[in-house]
């Protein structure tokens, strides 16, 4: 990857000590002056955000404002685009994810991601869930069986698939596929789950199921969810960040953003005047 990373870390690092038991309200991500370019296209501009543990953080904003770009930066998936350049610091649990020593596989093992389009592997339901643990060295069949059941239960899809674990995942409905992808993510027990418009390809009932799931998962995971749908942000999230043209316009408690935003542009957006 020919991403050029400029790190201006020093003073930030060491502020939080790694591997210490953290209190409920500690930051999981601290984004400090993040800038990102696709070639010459400046897609993220001086983004500063502090994302707390065991909260649901919603990212809202009109199409093309950089929501996907931002969330993909948090697990460095954005670097798969060869022309991307980033600049700034993202501390994940106190460590700058752009550090040269930070292995991207390690980061992605503890930061899971659910995509806009359900993307199960063309394998059996069982093998979809077992894939992650297997890649990370879990071979014992009994342990894998347990992981598969626990993850599928965690994603509220166990009852629907328990009798067809050996069938191909593409036989499931879109909503089921998406919950399967959430289960696949839970199987390696990440700390954070990133979700990029996880319900935009789903019908209303499946959407509701995924939203309930998000509420449920909050106990054990920090969740960052991009959504196009403001009601969804209002329903599921604790904090909301409003992005516009690659900038964070406002970041606050969700109820404040929706009842009493401090920026005129936020108000315009949530009242449906643009986007």
């Amino acid at each position, binding site marked *: 990857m020919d991403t050029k990373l400029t790190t201006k870390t020093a003073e930030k690092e060491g502020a939080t000590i790694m591997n210490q038991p953290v209190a409920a309200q500690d930051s999981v991500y601290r984004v400090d002056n993040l800038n990102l370019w696709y070639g010459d296209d400046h897609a993220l501009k001086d983004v500063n955000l502090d994302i707390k543990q065991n909260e649901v953080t919603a990212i809202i904003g009109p199409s093309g404002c950089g929501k996907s770009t931002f969330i993909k930066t948090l*697990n460095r*998936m954005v670097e*798969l685009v060869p022309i991307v350049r980033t600049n700034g610091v993202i501390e994940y649990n106190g460590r700058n994810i752009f550090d040269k020593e930070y292995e991207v*596989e*390690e*980061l*992605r*093992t503890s930061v*899971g*991601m659910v*995509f806009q*389009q359900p*993307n*199960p*592997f*063309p*394998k059996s339901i069982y093998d979809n869930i077992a*894939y*992650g643990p*297997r*890649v*990370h060295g879990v071979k014992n069949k009994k342990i894998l069986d347990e992981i598969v059941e626990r993850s599928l239960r965690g994603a509220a899809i166990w009852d629907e698939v328990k009798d067809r674990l050996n069938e*191909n995942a*593409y036989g499931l409905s879109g909503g089921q596929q998406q919950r399967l*992808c959430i289960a*696949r*993510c839970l199987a*390696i027990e990440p700390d954070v789950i990133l979700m990029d418009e996880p319900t935009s390809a789903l019908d209303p009932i499946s959407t509701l199921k995924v939203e309930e799931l998000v509420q449920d998962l909050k106990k054990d995971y920090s969740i960052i969810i991009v959504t196009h749908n403001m009601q969804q942000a209002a329903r599921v999230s604790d904090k909301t960040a409003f992005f516009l043209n690659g900038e964070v316009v406002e970041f606050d408690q969700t109820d404040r953003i929706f009842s009493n935003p401090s920026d005129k542009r936020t108000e315009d957006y949530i009242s449906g005047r643009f986007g």
Partner: protein
Amino acid sequence: MNSSSKGSVRELIQQNRKQKFSMKNIMERIMPIVLFLCAFVSVVTTIGIILTLVIETEHFFEVVSIKEFFGSTSWYPLNSQPEYGIWPLVVGTLEITVIAMLVAVPIGLTSAIYLSEYASERARRVLKPILEVLAGVPTIVFGFFALTFVTPLLVKLIPGLAIYNALSPGIVVGIMIIPMIASISEDAMSSVPKKIRDGALALGSTRLEVALKVVVPAALSGIIASIVLGMSRAIGETMIVTIAGGSNPTATVNPLEPVQTMTAYIVQVALGDAGYGTVEYYSIYAVGTLLFVFTLVMNLLANWITRRFREEY
């Protein structure tokens, strides 16, 4: 054309539509027939080939029993007491095929994985045409390459190696098949959607893990089909084995000794002076039929695999 008012264009179109025998209408009627006839040529050819094979083969089996053909293990059609046991030719053919696949499958698949998962757009643009050039080299050139380059090299490495042997043409047939396996497999792997790779990468897999544990299984039907088609090519390959394999129909599996494949036998007889109507003459049709059945089964198998195991994403 002058800009005409709205009504006049509509009128013009309607007028044209009324003409029954316009060029357009005639073409519309004739073209399907022409297209059908063109397609029909290849169907007729296939039927003709099959008929010839079957009829001449029947003549062969009027003299030689099916029991001898499949039961005997010696093939001496030129002896005063000729023997027609097909096994030495089948063994020779399979021997070449196995050696070729041992060369072509690992190299072909590795190239396909490299091209699909690792190569930059630029590298791919350079390498794929090179592969295609390799696929376009006439087999006679490969044959001389085997005899004049690979065999002498092998003789240096393996003392006592016969000048005509199975190993050298086997390796070269394998080299010839590499582009086929690489290119079909690469197509199958490239058509695995990006979102599936992303899903695997987001779980903390390395690129190699994504390639081997997600992309290759997802493209397996295409990969297997490429291997089966490659085998079919190897079984039917003629020039390389005729030139570098010798003409010694022994039922040995030792790759260091001369062999004769089914195809090489047909060449030998066809170029010789077997008179029309002799058993020897008919024998090439019997061998040809068997060869045809082999490759047909392989191609059907490849077809069936791609259809039966086609992955949906």
